[in-house]
């Protein structure tokens, strides 16, 4: 308890809060730009942190993390161009709300959910960091493989109406992710001798192409972004409406406490497991919320629960990744890897001992993550409201600038022109997929999960001596297999029940007619 209080004392001064705020605002600005991930924003601040006391540098990165995790929701909602992979889940319900002229309300929901998710996860992390670190260390390649299979099974819940097309989309994503060098043998597969593909099929250019470039090409046919009358919606950017937007967002968020609590927990757990990535948490939360929801508003058409689920888990996962990073020295995400670098620069070796050797700094980071989440509410209000005005600009003036941003985002990922060309190719794929109703999100998820599945599967197989029974010899593994089985059975039963209800409804309507 003493060390927590010491951590709070480190945080409770103007200098610490200033650097936290600098990080938050920087993260917000960079996070709004498609293709600029949280890691890029954090890495840009590392040179600034040299010379600063350790806790100030770490607080700045924590601020960047929180800011950019939320900021990715803004272009996702306004333009259907996710700032990061995870915010594609936010876009599924956020953008339809924006098209209904409720962009500020949707951003308000995202803001409140991000804040609450980060704070809930932060409280749990502060109270249980030791336990969470113990749990994280028990996850080896075998358990990671089963977790990713569970993630795939859960994500089946967010497929579109056409199941065949959704299956093609996810299989295409998984197959495309195999275009790389095998992680164990180094043998390249279908890379055509292109060095940029040896490491991976990069998913940032894929997101930029499938969402950003394809979206801008489609919007070229329209006179306006929103489908509501622009004159009516132009009056929304006033103080009175900003306030009502905040009140609406808070009121809506408190109507779904279970959604936020459950999503925060899912995000925290996904963040604690190193290597899974925060983006998967968004989709798992979204999928589970969709299955549990009794709302009459269909998901994918502006259901607020979808936004709340995605954004709460997003920021909760960010807090979760701090646990393996600080307590085990295993970065839970690319941004956490930046924080790890800062620890090493300051001569600190992260690991189980760091809780005793640098406890106050560690807890100031965890508490800082909570404070940064709370600050999202006022900072998000100030910065996102002007951005919402973007949807008032006719697409013929805006498309060019956004396409230029897409080029910058694709290039900035690895300083490679090849990534820009790749984004363009994915743009072609994206436009055809959108026109014929193929869901794009499963393809992105396949690209993200494919390498994780393969790496962990091959490692587990090698550790187990090519013995299939190895996958069933761990208690945690068997619990995960049971969860996977339950997910599959539940998905099948709920699909059969909803089809039966649909048929009954149709027959009842036909009888009445």
């Amino acid at each position: 308890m003493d060390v927590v209080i010491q951590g709070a004392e480190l945080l409770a001064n103007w200098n610490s809060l200033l650097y936290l705020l600098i990080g938050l605002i920087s993260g917000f600005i960079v996070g709004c730009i498609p293709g600029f991930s949280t890691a890029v924003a954090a890495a840009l601040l590392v040179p600034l942190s040299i010379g600063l006391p350790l806790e100030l540098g770490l607080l700045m990165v924590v601020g960047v993390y929180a800011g950019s995790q939320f900021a990715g929701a803004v272009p996702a909602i306004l333009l259907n161009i996710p700032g990061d992979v995870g915010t594609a889940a936010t876009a599924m319900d956020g953008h339809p709300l924006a098209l209904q002229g409720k962009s500020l309300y949707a951003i308000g929901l995202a803001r409140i959910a991000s804040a609450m998710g980060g704070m809930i996860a932060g409280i749990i992390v502060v109270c249980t960091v030791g336990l969470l670190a113990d749990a994280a260390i028990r996850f080896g390649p075998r358990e990671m493989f089963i977790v990713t299979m569970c993630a795939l099974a859960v994500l089946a819940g967010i497929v579109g109406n056409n199941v065949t097309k959704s299956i093609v989309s996810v299989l295409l994503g998984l197959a495309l992710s195999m275009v790389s060098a095998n992680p164990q043998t180094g043998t390249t597969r279908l890379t055509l001798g292109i060095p940029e593909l040896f490491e991976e099929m990069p998913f940032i250019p894929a997101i930029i192409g499938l969402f950003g470039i394809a979206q801008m090409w489609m919007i070229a046919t329209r006179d306006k972004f929103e489908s509501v009358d622009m004159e009516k919606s132009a009056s929304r950017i006033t103080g009175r409406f900003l306030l009502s937007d905040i009140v609406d967002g808070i009121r809506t968020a408190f109507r779904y406490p279970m959604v936020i609590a459950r999503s925060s927990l899912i995000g925290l757990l996904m963040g604690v497991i190193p290597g899974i990535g925060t983006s998967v948490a968004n989709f798992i939360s979204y999928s589970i919320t969709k299955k549990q929801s009794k709302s009459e508003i269909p998901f994918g058409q502006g259901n607020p629960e979808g936004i709340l689920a995605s954004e709460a888990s997003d920021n909760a996962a960010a807090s979760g990744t701090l646990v393996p990073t600080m307590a085990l020295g295993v970065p839970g995400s690319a941004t956490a890897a930046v924080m790890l670098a800062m620890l090493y620069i300051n001569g600190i070796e992260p690991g189980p001992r760091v809780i005793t050797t640098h406890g106050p700094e560690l807890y100031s980071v965890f508490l800082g993550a909570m404070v940064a989440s709370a600050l999202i509410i006022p900072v998000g209000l100030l910065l996102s409201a002007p951005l919402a005005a973007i949807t008032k600009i006719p697409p013929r003036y805006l498309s060019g600038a956004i396409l230029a941003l897409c080029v910058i985002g694709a290039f900035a990922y690895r300083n490679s022109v090849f990534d820009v060309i790749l984004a363009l190719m994915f743009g072609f794929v994206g436009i055809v997929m959108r026109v014929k109703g193929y869901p794009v999100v499963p393809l992105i998820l396949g690209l993200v999960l494919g390498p994780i599945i393969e790496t962990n599967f091959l490692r587990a197989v090698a550790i187990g001596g090519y013995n299939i029974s190895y996958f069933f010899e761990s208690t945690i593994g068997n619990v995960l297999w049971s969860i996977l089985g339950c997910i599959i059975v539940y998905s099948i039963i709920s699909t059969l029940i909803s089809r039966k209800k649909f048929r009954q409804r149709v027959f009842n309507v036909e009888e009445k007619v």
Partner: protein
Amino acid sequence: MQYQKQQKEKSSQKGRNVTRIAFEAAIPLMSLVFGIALFANTSQMNIDTKLLPQLMAVPLVIVSLLLLVKSAGAVVTRKVSPPETEDEKSILDHPKKVIWAISLTVIYISIIPWVGFFSSTALFMFALMHVLGAKGFLRKLAISVGSTAGIYVLFGLIIAVPLPHGYLI
């Protein structure tokens, strides 16, 4: 006169149907070719390298074939179902705008290494606004140059990220 109008409408409708069938077949065809290529490319490799790619490729090929058969049915029977999505309706109603947007983007990305990022960005924005129907030469010039200058300030100076470069500016 009326006969010519009817002929024009007929050929336009035929063009739309051909476009729609092409769109219908594009993704399954691409997936089929890619699946077969991945399977063939990894067939001579050791089990560690080829296991998962082939596990992904086989169901991809099967499902793609099913979808191709369905779209081939549309070609044979010449029965095309109504547009499934709003995007499909938009693209069929305004094909020229989409083709221009795509073509200009391809040209833009191609000329960056020669003309330079900032020059090509300004030219691209101007040209895109023009083909999408924006009015006012000075307005288009101001927006394209102003936006490019803004990009330079934000990305080149403030955030200082590397940008694509070419022989010119």
